């Protein structure tokens, strides 16, 4: 190997002029951004702001049309109580959607685990704590099955969870023989099952433990997604799985943990749902999957993965809660709520596309 050319004199003839080229730091034509562009840039950098704005607006609208009845601590805390289950399931959905997946089986896992917790206690006389632990373990197993099928067999998440949704739900009915465990029985024999239904009052507002469970869970996941390597990997996989893999992210392992965690969270939702309903019934939570996807989409997350914030999902769930509660207080047909939520979903996706042009 001989002495190489010094880098100071370019080798190609046409590059000679480079030595005279401008050395000033590139100063981009900082043309005044129009207010609209500024808004778009802001929304691009903080994805949870759109749903937050919509949430505040909807609160104001209902405060005006329904009146002071709506703006009481009691009424507002009631919305939180109603949103708690969807918020927890939505947290599971958030993880999956961030990886560009979708989980249709979340509701089924929730029902299955709640039935297991109830039946193990009452049918086999198991200690409640152990029965709950079994439910949680089963939730993780359900998520693990989804994860293996998706990460290792490379089946599309939509198809896998469409299948496991039916399987888990059918298992629930077959196992429980469509039996409901009555609320009084649980109250006298296994209060721990209703733990998340316990209430505390703070200045007229009533919060169930389920509400706190949702808020704490979302706070933890927010931290994990934004401040740990695992969280960054979840985003990277949803963004571009091939690039993530080449950059050294263990994509399969991360995907499996995402689905297992989603299953665990659904089991938590299952436990919390016993507190909410009082009883254990295989009939509950039929639409939890659709409701969680609705919360995620209205919350401004991209179903193509890699974009969005779990806080957006919370705001999305709250928007749905505010609308259904407000409309009921106003006294309209409940179908109007569904109509408006349908419009919101489409609007949310349209706004998402518009914001994304900032990067194009």
């Amino acid at each position, binding site marked *: 190997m001989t002495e190489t*050319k010094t880098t100071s004199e370019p080798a190609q003839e046409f*590059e000679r002029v480079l030595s005279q080229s401008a050395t000033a730091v590139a100063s981009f034509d900082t043309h005044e951004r129009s207010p609209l562009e500024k808004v778009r840039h802001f929304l691009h950098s903080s994805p949870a702001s759109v749903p937050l704005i919509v949430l505040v607006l909807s609160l104001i609208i209902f405060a005006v049309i329904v009146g002071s009845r709506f703006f009481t601590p009691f009424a507002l805390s009631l919305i939180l109580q109603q949103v708690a289950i969807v918020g927890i399931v939505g947290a599971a959905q958030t993880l999956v959607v961030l990886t560009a997946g979708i989980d249709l089986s979340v509701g089924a896992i929730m029902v299955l685990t709640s039935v297991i917790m109830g039946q193990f206690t009452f049918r086999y006389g198991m200690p409640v704590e152990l029965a709950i632990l079994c439910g949680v373990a089963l939730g993780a197993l359900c998520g693990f099955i989804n994860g293996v099928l998706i990460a290792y067999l490379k089946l599309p998440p939509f198809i896998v969870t469409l299948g496991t949704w039916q399987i888990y739900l059918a298992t629930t009915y077959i196992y429980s023989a469509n039996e409901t465990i009555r609320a009084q029985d649980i109250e006298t024999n296994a209060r721990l099952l209703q733990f998340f239904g316990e209430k505390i009052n703070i200045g007229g507002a009533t919060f169930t433990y389920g509400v706190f469970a949702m808020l704490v869970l979302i706070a933890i996941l927010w931290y994990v997604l934004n401040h*740990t390597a695992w969280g960054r990997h979840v985003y990277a996989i949803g963004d571009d799985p091939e690039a993530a893999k080449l950059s050294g992210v263990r994509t399969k392992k991360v995907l499996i943990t995402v689905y297992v965690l989603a299953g665990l969270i659904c089991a938590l939702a299952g436990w919390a749902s016993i507190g909410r309903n009082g009883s254990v019934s295989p009939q509950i939570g039929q639409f939890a999957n659709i409701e969680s996807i609705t919360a995620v989409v209205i919350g401004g997350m991209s179903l193509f993965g890699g974009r969005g914030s779990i806080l957006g999902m919370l705001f999305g769930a709250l928007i749905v809660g505010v609308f259904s509660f407000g409309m009921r207080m106003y006294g309209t047909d409940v179908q109007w709520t569904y109509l408006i939520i349908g419009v919101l979903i489409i609007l949310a996706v349209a706004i998402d596309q518009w914001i994304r042009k900032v990067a194009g």
Partner: protein
Amino acid sequence: MSREPILTARGLVKRYGRVTALDHADFDLYPGEVLAVIGDNGAGKSSLIKAISGAIHPDEGEMTLEGKPMHFRSPMEARDAGIETVYQTLALSPALSIADNMFLGREIRKPGIMGTWFRMLDRKAMEKRARDKLTELGLMTIQNIGQAVETLSGGQRQGVAVARAAAFGSKVVIMDEPTAALGVKESRRVLELIQDVKKRGLPIVLISHNMPHVFEVADRIHIHRLGKRLTVIDPKEYTMSDAVAFMTGAKTPPAQSIA
């Protein structure tokens, strides 16, 4: 060349269904050199590079790094062994920040309990190192190290990918078409960077279609044809048209021309 090669491959075979991408290909990289790999489209350059960087597993063949046999099951293992690759696709996550991208898969955690128990990322440290690296390479003027990669221009993205490899490569740096997406000035920067990395003693594998660039920086040129190493030439003894003739099959290289 009396020295031992740092990286060797012997008889690599990789088949995709009926297509044979690598057909008993050999490869040698010596310490401190810039080895260019050229070849027609479909000659198997990418498969060869992917085999070395751990992205694919050859069906047959042996590879050694510093004399020790190596069997990478993932790019992560190759990276841990000290082989860094700048992929043609860059392998960046558009929605993540520059710093997050540079440290993807080898994040720095905060010291103390926050790092070990809560696994909190040390954003400040990562951003500082990323900024230092980018400044050192003088590749770009970035206003905000926390901005998403998707808001950067093509050349700036290339710069981030090159900086990442240069920052972490400890034994070998592989660059797949590093100047393909760049303008004249940015290409010059990357070529200077290749020289810089070489001066630090790191060998570089450069895959490129740009003959002037190849002949400028390469110490040896590995010509790949029909899935195997056709020959290795010294750029000072052959012209660019010779190289093109060998690689397209217009001319057969002299026997025993392993430079």
